[in-house]
């Protein structure tokens, strides 16, 4: 007799519901961590605020335009951390050997790692990002046409995809190094901290890096040029679609790692 196979999506939702339910056993701890997430990024916001009180403008960008950028990147990062946390903490799965258990199950291992964790506590940071986003959207003086709303949505999707890709890449590297490479924090935390500002303020070399090496600017700087009316080229609005491709090579690296993987746990 053949059992009916549950669809991948159903399984994933089941994983999420298990994660959320187990987290809700410790409600107070959950609320504390979520509040902590809210406040931790609050300092970054205050920093921008005080700097603009002094300088008023940054390389031609106004306060609300930078806030738009800040909130989009913060939202991207929080979403990626919320859904992709399993990959972010993948090194512990390798070290403890629980990835071996994953491999013995007859389901896709990406799905299982993705489902191993769902960080709802990041909702604190998302809340802050949403508040700032609303401020940025209403105060930046942008005329919100349908195309521009689409651009903003694509920016969110593309940025999240890039951060997810980096998490997967870092997890894939764990197959070879057995522990997480702390240096990768530069690409995640660093991008969250310094991606608050449009990348062109850091100069041409950084912009080059953020376009061709890790393509952050596809979902940040270029569509922002279109959003703020610095460029009329509607093609820029759809560049974040390219960013959606970034997880692909990361996935290949992961596949390569899985094939090379020899157990390490005990």
């Amino acid at each position, binding site marked *: 007799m053949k059992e009916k196979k549950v669809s991948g999506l159903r399984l994933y939702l089941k994983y999420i519901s298990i994660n959320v339910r187990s987290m809700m056993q410790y409600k107070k*701890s959950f609320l*504390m*961590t979520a*509040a*902590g997430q809210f*406040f*931790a990024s*609050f*300092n*970054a916001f*205050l*920093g921008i605020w*005080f*700097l603009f*009180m*002094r*300088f*008023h*403008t*940054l*390389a*031609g960008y106004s306060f609300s335009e930078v806030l738009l950028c800040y909130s989009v990147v913060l939202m991207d990062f929080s979403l990626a951390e919320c859904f992709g946390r399993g990959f972010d903490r993948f090194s512990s799965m390798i070290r403890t050997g629980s990835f071996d258990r994953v491999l013995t199950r007859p389901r896709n291992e990406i799905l299982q790692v993705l489902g191993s964790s769902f960080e709802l506590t990041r909702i604190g940071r998302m809340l802050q990002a949403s508040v700032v986003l609303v401020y940025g959207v209403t105060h930046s003086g942008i005329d919100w046409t349908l195309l521009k709303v689409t651009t903003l949505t694509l920016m969110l999707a593309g940025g999240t995809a890039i951060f997810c890709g980096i998490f997967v890449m870092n997890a894939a590297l764990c197959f070879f190094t057995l522990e997480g*490479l*702390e*240096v990768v*924090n*530069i690409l995640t935390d*660093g991008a969250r*901290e*310094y991606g608050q*500002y449009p990348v062109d*303020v*850091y*100069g041409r070399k*950084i912009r080059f890096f953020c376009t061709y090496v890790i393509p952050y600017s596809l979902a940040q700087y270029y569509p922002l040029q279109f959003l703020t009316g610095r460029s009329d080229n509607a093609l820029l609005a759809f560049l974040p679609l390219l960013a959606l491709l970034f997880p692909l090579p990361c996935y290949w690296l992961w596949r390569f790692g899985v094939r090379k993987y020899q157990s390490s746990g005990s």
Partner: protein
Amino acid sequence: MNTLSLSFTSHTRYEVNAVKRIYNRWKKYFSFFRLRLVTGLQYRAAALAGIATQFVWGFMEIKLFYAFKTSDPDAFPMRFEQFASYIWLQQAFLALFMTWLMENEIFDSIMNGNISYELCRPVDIYNMWLARSFANRMSRALLRCVPILLVAFFLPAPYAMTLPPDILSFVCFLISMLLGLTVTIAICMLVYMLSFFTVSPQGLKIVFVMITELFQGEVIPLPFFPPRMQRVMELLPFASMENVPLRIYSGHISGNETVRVMTLQLVWIVILIAVGKLICRAAMKKTVVQGG
């Protein structure tokens, strides 16, 4: 003549004994310090990753402020070399001043009850933790500071770290850095002591880290705050942490101002340690060991 020399020797002997007594009293804390320092120096791989991260952080921070400076040069409150030195010193000596680098072992021992073992030892718990914090922070900083500073000195013009204006400000910088480290640790000690009175220190920690980061000039240096706000902030204990030594180094604080801010550092050290010890005594009286 004879009696005089006799009394002289007995006097020196008394002096020697006093030094010895003090040494014996503090010996245990020195060995805590040495032990922790040696342990901390073992984590070289983590230090290497830390150095790379700190270097990128510093570089991006300087790039960002350079962009702000070009946007409105007159609004920049310090010379740019002074700012670059501030940032590189901040990154190199991160481990000395960051409050998120609190001793989790201490929180854990308070929560899980291991604190009872520590209380059995014939040592003063405040002094022991003080010695331990000094050692942990210094070992981390020792491993990380040299490569960062070396590279920072050889960077091209606006980004490079510069030498202090004169030898006096360098000496003042070293002393005030030690004072700043003491203030940082004394403030952290307050949090450890207060966590005796709560079941979970999580909330306390979050609020504390956020306040210290903002008020000690970690998010943006204090001179970048609005002037009126800055004047108040400079009087708070948080300004005596990294703000003072990093600005003395580059000469942004100089002359009589140096004497004033360093005296303030000393005053805060005395107050913070006194309050810390008082809370410690109160905590010891009513400690309920939670763990089993």
